[in-house]
C-alpha cells in the first residue's frame, strides 16, 4: 500500500492512503485528488517497506522492554544475593580457583593447550578475526539459505564458546579437575536412579 507522508493538509491528518495504481508507475498521471491539495513531502512506493512513526511506536516498545527488564532484575535481586565470601586472604588459595564465568572458557583452554596458545594466540585470533569478519565475508546476500558456510562456522564457534564456559563452571572442581559429581551428585551418598 502506498503511503504519503507529511505535506498535504498538514496537521490533523495521519498518513494518506493513496490507491497504488498511479503511484506505482510514477511517469503517469500526477497525483491529484480531494485528499491532496499540496504536493506530499515524501512519496513511498508500494515496493518500499511500510514504515511507522518512531514516536510513539518504537519508543513505546522500548519503554515496555525496559520496564520488563527492570522488573525482572528487581525480582531476581530481591530473591538472590550476590556472593560475598570471606575477606580476601592471599595465604589461603581456594580450591578450585576459577576466573569469572565469562573467562572460564579461556581457563578451560589453558587446561588443554600450551599457555601461549590458549592465553594469547586464541583470544587474539578470535578478536582480530571477528573485527575482520565483514571484510572477509564477500557474500552480499543476507538470506540464510545463501550463507550456509558463514552460519555453520559461527554456530560452531558459538557452541564451542558456550560449551567451554559450561564445562568450566559445572564440570571442574578440585584443582580444576573434571568432576561429574557437581551435576550428578555423589553415587556413594545418594542411591542411583
Amino acid at each position, binding site marked *: 500500500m502506498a503511503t504519503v507522508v507529511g505535506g498535504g493538509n498538514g496537521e490533523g491528518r495521519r498518513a494518506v492512503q493513496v490507491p497504488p495504481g498511479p503511484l506505482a508507475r510514477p511517469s503517469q498521471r500526477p497525483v491529484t485528488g480531494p485528499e491532496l491539495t499540496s504536493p506530499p513531502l515524501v512519496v513511498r512506493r508500494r515496493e518500499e517497506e511500510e514504515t511507522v512513526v518512531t514516536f510513539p511506536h518504537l519508543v513505546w516498545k522500548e519503554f515496555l522492554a525496559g520496564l520488563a527488564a527492570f522488573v525482572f*532484575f528487581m525480582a531476581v535481586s530481591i530473591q538472590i544475593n550476590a556472593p560475598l565470601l570471606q575477606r580476601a586472604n592471599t595465604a589461603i588459595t581456594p580450591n578450585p580457583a576459577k576466573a569469572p564465568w565469562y573467562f572460564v572458557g579461556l581457563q578451560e583452554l589453558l587446561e588443554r593447550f600450551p599457555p601461549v596458545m590458549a592465553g594469547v594466540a586464541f583470544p587474539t585470533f578470535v578478536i582480530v578475526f571477528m573485527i575482520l569478519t565483514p571484510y572477509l565475508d564477500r557474500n552480499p546476500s543476507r538470506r540464510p539459505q545463501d550463507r550456509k558456510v558463514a552460519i555453520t562456522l559461527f554456530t560452531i564457534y558459538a557452541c564451542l564458546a558456550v560449551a567451554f564456559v559450561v564445562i568450566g563452571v559445572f564440570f571442574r572442581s578440585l584443582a580444576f579437575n573434571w568432576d561429574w559429581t557437581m551435576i550428578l551428585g555423589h553415587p556413594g551418598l545418594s542411591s542411583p536412579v
Partner: protein
Amino acid sequence: MSATPREASPIRAFVAQIWGSIFRHGLPTTDKVAARTALTNFFLHIHPVRVKKSAIRVSYTLCLGGLSFFLFILLTITGLFLMFYYIPSIDQAYQNIKDLQFVATFGLVIRNMHRWAAHGMVITVWLHMARVFYQGAYKPPREFNWAIGTLLLLTTLLLSFSGYLLPWDQLAVWAITVGTNMAKYAPLVGPYTRYLLLGGRTVAQGALIRFYVLHVIALPLIGFLLMVVHFWRVRKDGFTGGL
C-alpha cells in the same frame, strides 16, 4: 462558565509557556507532531523519525541491543549508589560491602542488582552480536559498526572483570589472580602487562586502586563513547530490517 475565559487565565498561560519552553510541540496526536516530537527532543532524536515496520518487530532484534544499553544505564545508576559507600582500600573495601549488605537501607538490593545486571549485560551483548551475525547485519555498509561492536563487547567484559575485584573477598582476589595470570603468557610483554595491570607482582592495594579507577571512570567513559558512535552509525548506515 467561570468569569474569566480559560485562555485568559494567567496561570494557564504560564503553565503553557513552561510546557512550550521544554517540549516545543503539543501532544503527539498526529503523525506530523509525532515526527516533530522525535526530531526536536534531545533524548528521542537518536531515533529516525520513521522506522520500517519489520525492523522494530520484537522478533527481529529481540530487543537485545536496546536491552544492553538499558542494562548499561541501570549499572551506571546502581553503581553511583554503591560509590557513596565504597572506599577502594584493602583495609576498608570488604567492610564497606558488608555494610552495604547489612546496614545501608536498600544497600543489599542495589548491590544485587548491580551484580546481576552486570552478568546480564555480558549475556545480552553476546546474544546481540549473535543476532547481528545470523541476520548478516554486519555486511556493507555496516562493517565498521560491527568493529565498534567488537570493541563494545571487549569493553563490557573488561568492565565486568574490573568490577569483580572490588568486594575484596576470596572470590574476587583469586578470580583476578587467575585472570591476570593468563596475561603472563604473552611472549615478551606478558609479565610486563600483568605488572602494569596489577601495579605490582601480586593482587594487592596497587591492583585494587587500578581496577577501581578503570571500573568507575575509564571503562565506562570508553564504553559510553563507543555506544554514542555505535548508535550514530546505526542511524547513518540505516537499520537493516526484514530479511
